[in-house]
């Protein structure tokens, strides 16, 4: 959550800090390859800011790593703060409310101070039951806010620490209601978002406790930071792997309309969070995918891809488009009809992504194109005659490996007719010949040489197309010229049996004893 720090609004700097921690958690969950080195690099650069509460707090500079002493001090202070809170909560006399708020604020400050908030110390001192008490109905807004804030930061810690919020969940969910003040609702949503981001188990708990409907309703207004936080929390809540939540979300009254409205009109930051919601809706729920496609969600997605330059926005929008195309054959067959304006629009923005400097855009745009190219003959011709092909050919020889693989899928799909029953699919000879003439074969032979099984397979499959389909039996010679025989013969000592058989089969069939005899 890239909250630009608005010095006037005192909560925001802390929010950035909390956002950092929360984002760190999200990252841990999102990236399947989380290694310590990477995380430490990222974490070390994280700015920690202390809230400008007017108490004269000084922002902590980045890389201001705490010494052990300072760490112990912080832990001590935290334990004291919790003790203080305990007595404040017990106190019934005059000024009790202010006492509680002050104690909460102190604890919140301590929990927002450094990259490694003293969550463990707080938990050990018994913070949770106290914070739960502070969330009771009828409590003043400031108290609710500070308590939810503390819980947010606690939830942004380690898995066990997030789980410690369990007793607080029902109350946090309750305070999402429409009667709550917006800042309170938002802070609760934030805490819940962190909890949801932790893992499947906690998501299940939240869903069973009814977190989804109130969060969904928070997305309905036209603007505000609350809408954004709610969208973010929802994206964590529905991310599965169980598709039920995604399906449930799209069914909530007003949600579909709100999603499309935000996608069309809202600022890029809000649109980004909503786009991530769409990513999960379209990746997990067939029902949601169908609804989105029928409601013409493709149009605003294309529009954003065409007009935005924010990578943060482009990635989820492109992926949403990709998911809608991949998830439902209707998208390609009933919406993206060749000749229709929307179809041209889609191809155009995909080409724009291919031209971009960003690896993810190039890779995922190629993926989308490969799925469109897996459609009808008309779809293949549409792509074949578009600006995409020259770009793809260039990418096949120059791009990083993961992009090349996707590009290979597009080009290969352009050469093969849709499957019709048993047996080998028919070749589209003109496309194959033309692409080979434009030099794509060497890129495919390169894939044959790769250590990646899927890539090697693709390379061999395309090689087979060339060997089989080039006119006048010219395939073998072309393959030989690109050192294809050498590449295939490497598989004799390869440990993967499928690839060995594929390669050996091709060599035996097309480069047997009599190869070249009748020249």
């Amino acid at each position: 959550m890239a909250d630009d720090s608005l010095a006037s609004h005192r909560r925001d700097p802390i929010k950035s800090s909390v956002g950092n921690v929360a984002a760190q958690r999200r990252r841990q969950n999102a990236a399947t390859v989380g290694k310590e080195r990477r995380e430490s690099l990222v974490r070390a650069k994280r700015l920690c800011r202390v809230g400008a509460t007017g108490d004269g707090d000084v922002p902590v500079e980045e890389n201001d790593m705490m010494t052990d002493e300072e760490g112990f001090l912080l832990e001590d202070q935290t334990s004291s703060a919790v003790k203080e809170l305990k007595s404040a909560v017990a106190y019934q006399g005059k000024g009790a409310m202010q006492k509680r708020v002050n104690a909460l604020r102190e604890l919140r400050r301590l929990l927002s101070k450094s990259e490694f908030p003293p969550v463990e110390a707080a938990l050990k001192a018994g913070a949770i039951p106290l914070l739960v008490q502070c969330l009771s109905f009828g409590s003043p807004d400031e108290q609710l806010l500070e308590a939810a804030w503390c819980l947010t930061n606690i939830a942004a810690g380690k898995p066990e620490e997030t789980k410690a919020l369990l007793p607080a969940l029902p109350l946090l969910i309750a305070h999402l209601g429409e009667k709550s003040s917006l800042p309170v609702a938002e802070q609760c949503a934030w805490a819940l978002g962190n909890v949801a981001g932790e893992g499947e188990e906690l998501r299940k708990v939240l869903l069973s406790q009814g977190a989804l409907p109130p969060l969904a309703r928070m997305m309905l207004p036209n603007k505000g930071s609350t809408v954004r936080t709610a969208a973010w929390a929802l994206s964590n809540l529905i991310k599965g792997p169980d598709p039920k939540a995604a399906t449930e979300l799209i069914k909530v009254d007003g949600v579909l309309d709100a999603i499309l409205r935000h996608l069309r009109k809202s600022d890029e930051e809000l649109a980004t969070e909503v786009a991530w919601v769409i990513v999960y809706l379209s990746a997990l729920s067939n029902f949601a995918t169908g609804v989105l496609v029928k409601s013409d969600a493709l149009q605003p997605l294309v529009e954003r891809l065409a007009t935005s330059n924010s990578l943060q926005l482009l990635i989820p929008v492109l992926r949403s488009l990709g998911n809608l195309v991949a998830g439902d054959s209707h998208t390609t067959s009933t919406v993206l009809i060749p000749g229709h304006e929307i179809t041209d629009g889609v191809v155009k923005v995909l080409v724009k992504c291919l031209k971009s400097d960003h690896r993810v855009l190039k890779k995922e745009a190629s993926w989308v194109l490969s799925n469109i190219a897996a459609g009808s003959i008309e779809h293949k011709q549409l792509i074949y005659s578009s600006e995409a092909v020259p770009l793809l050919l260039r990418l096949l020889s120059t791009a990083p490996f993961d992009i090349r693989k996707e590009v290979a899928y597009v080009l290969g799909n352009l050469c093969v007719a849709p499957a019709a029953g048993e047996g080998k699919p028919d070749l589209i000879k003109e496309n194959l010949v033309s692409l080979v003439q434009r030099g794509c074969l060497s890129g495919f032979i390169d894939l044959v040489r790769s250590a990646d099984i899927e890539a090697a397979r693709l390379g061999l499959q395309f090689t087979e197309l060339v060997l089989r389909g080039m006119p006048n039996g010219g395939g073998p010679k072309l393959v030989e010229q690109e050192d294809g025989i050498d590449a295939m013969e490497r598989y004799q000592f390869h440990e993967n049996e499928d690839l060995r058989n594929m390669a050996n089969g091709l060599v035996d069939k097309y480069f047997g004893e009599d190869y070249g005899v009748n020249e």
Partner: protein
Amino acid sequence: MAMVVDYKHDSSFPYWTSIRRRFDPDSPFFSSGNLERELLAKQVALDLTEDERNQLEKMIDNDARGVFCPIVGCGARLTSLEDFEDHYIARHTASCSVCSRVYPTSRLLSIHVSEAHDSFFQAKVARGYAMYECLVEGCDLKFKNYKGRQQHLVDKHKFPTSFEFFNKAHPSKKKRLKNQQKRRTHKKDEEASSKMEVENEIIDGLVSAVSKLSTSDSSPSNISFGRRNARGLTFVPRSIQAPREKK
């Protein structure tokens, strides 16, 4: 025209089929995009320099693509797919100095050299010793003839039936034409001609090198030292066929 076509391979080749591909949201396919989200979400706070970003991306790539060499018996860990080609060329292209065939390990190369170019080896075979080793390291079985070893590889170690340790060559057009000529003129003396093919190919290489130094005749078939070597080999097993040219 005896075409060796393995119909079994033909029917089971997994042809390219054009199909839609869908991925789950937590599929590794999306992980680089997800990472961008996290890094960018903290752009304001993170303030990574270009270098650090590249470093991070590389870490992701390596994590995702740290790969093991798939050549049988190697198992070397490679930091990235880009490294594989270098690794392959460095470690798996042991080439025979006599006939230029290439092998993925020095062990296989030395087995080849004994079997293909060592008259002493052939002498022992002729006297009935089990000289053909199993190619799988650690198996240690030996066989009296090439075919027997071949059968063992297929039966015991699941090698494909089309596998040939001493395999057919796929020479360039120039070489093929020359081979055809040889085949016509030396039809009866099959063994000797294939010997000459082996030698002539090497000779081409040697000659062109030598001719750069002196004024020797660059026409391969007239080089006398080549023929002398060919005559020197008394026995050539029937299984030896036209050599493969190393590119």
